[in-house]
């Protein structure tokens, strides 16, 4: 479980996060949603330690991650898998090398064991036989799937996903969402997804927090979101005429 307590983050005078509190439970798909500039990605980066919060604390299974030094964080970081918005695959490495990279650094597995693991991860994301390709030879959806394969190569306890559906067609988006959902159940990971894709919200949102102007404005599940009276949340979720019409039918 991950717990964030009173997270504030300022860039100069600009307060991006103002006192965020929440808990992200294991085996659940926790979604952080909100409009552009609401602080979603900043919150995610504070949780994983890419940004240091101005104040507040992040706990991983009760351990205070914020107070740890870089080397103290390494054991927790080995349990983290992250899919970045642009996949962040290493350009100079093949797909297979991208996936075996953390295994090379942090395990004593033999070469064949590492290759077996890479092939298993690739098969898991439906990219069997694509290990020798380089990132420049992959489509956007394939890059996301390789990013997921790399993220799960170390069998993470915590899975972070930043905008998994950006730049993808609706069908591929659904496939990525299903994959995230399956992996969360399979590995019992604490999964935190930053998104503003409403299909994802309705499809996989076990626990959702809605950020508005850097504050936690609403918290609930995908079942509850359709019936909330929160004005800002309704404006965000039901912005399109299609979603408004869908809500009226609910």
């Amino acid at each position, binding site marked *: 479980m991950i717990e964030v307590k009173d997270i504030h983050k300022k860039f100069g005078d600009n307060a991006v996060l103002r006192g965020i509190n929440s808990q992200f439970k294991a085996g659940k798909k926790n979604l952080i949603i909100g409009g552009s500039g609401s602080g979603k990605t900043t919150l995610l980066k504070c949780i*994983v*330690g*890419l940004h240091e919060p101005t104040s507040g604390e992040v706990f991983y299974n009760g351990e205070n991650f914020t107070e740890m030094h*870089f080397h103290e*964080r*390494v*054991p927790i*970081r*080995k349990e*983290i898998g*992250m899919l*970045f*918005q*642009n996949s*962040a*695959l*290493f*350009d100079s490495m093949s797909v297979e090398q991208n996936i075996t*990279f*953390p295994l*090379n*650094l*942090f395990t004593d597995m033999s070469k064949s064991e590492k290759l077996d693991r890479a092939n298993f991860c690739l098969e898991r994301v439906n990219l069997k036989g694509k290990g020798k390709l380089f990132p420049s030879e992959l489509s956007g959806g394939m890059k996301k799937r390789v990013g997921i394969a790399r993220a799960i190569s170390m069998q993470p306890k915590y899975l*972070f996903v930043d905008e998994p559906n950006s730049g993808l067609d609706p069908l591929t988006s659904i496939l990525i969402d299903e994959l995230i959902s399956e992996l969360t159940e399979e590995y019992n990971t604490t999964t935190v997804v930053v998104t503003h894709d409403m299909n994802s919200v309705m499809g996989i949102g076990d626990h959702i927090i809605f950020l508005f102007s850097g504050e936690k404005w609403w918290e609930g599940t995908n079942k509850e979101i359709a019936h909330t009276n929160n004005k800002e949340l309704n404006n965000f979720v039901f912005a399109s005429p299609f979603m408004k019409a869908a809500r009226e039918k609910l």
Partner: protein
Amino acid sequence: MFHSLGRYLLLLRLSFKKPEKFSVYWSEVMREMVSQGVGSLGIIGIISVFIGAVATVQVAFQLSSPLVPQSIAGSISRDSTILEFSPTISALVLAGRIGSSIASQIGTMRVTEQIDALEIMGVNAPGFLISPKILSGLSMVPLLTVVSVALGLSGGYLACIVSRDIAPTDYVVGLRDSFNPIIVGVCAVKSISFGFIITSVCSYFGFYTSGGALEVGQSATKGVVFSCIWILFADLLITSVML
């Protein structure tokens, strides 16, 4: 300026922390050696032959007096090639060839979140990205300088054959005449220092890139410009101290 110097020194300290796994870092060093060393052989070879040839022809032109033995042109070419032309001009060329590549590679990794991905995995990103490049620079730039010296002196010999300003035998006599080994020491110190400057300064500018493609280009330019300035400054300092 002090802020940048402090960040540069801190980055260097982080770069030389204990590696997560020595074998992985070692293979990175080997990869960098091939990229920096073998990849730069062509350009270093071409400029060295021409610079050696031009230096010999110009010295021969300036010493066209019957009172000065022709072999002196060989001695002057040798000393200027070993002391200045090979280490410094090679370093300036390598700052453009290797330095821009390092700054743009690391800068692109920064703006495409690849460095964030390394940090999330628990990898010491400065150590993994920068230390292999610096170690490779420290070994490959001196080796390239040795090649440059050899080719520069050969270029001078070729110029003697082609221009006939000096007899090739006189040139060879001049090369062997009154040789002072200290110049080899100065050349070695210069090339090692320049290797460190090129790789570390360009890595620094690449690592602290923020923004997008435009900023990556600016980082590469800044890396090359600052490397060149520091190379010339170090050149003066080493020459003043050692000679």
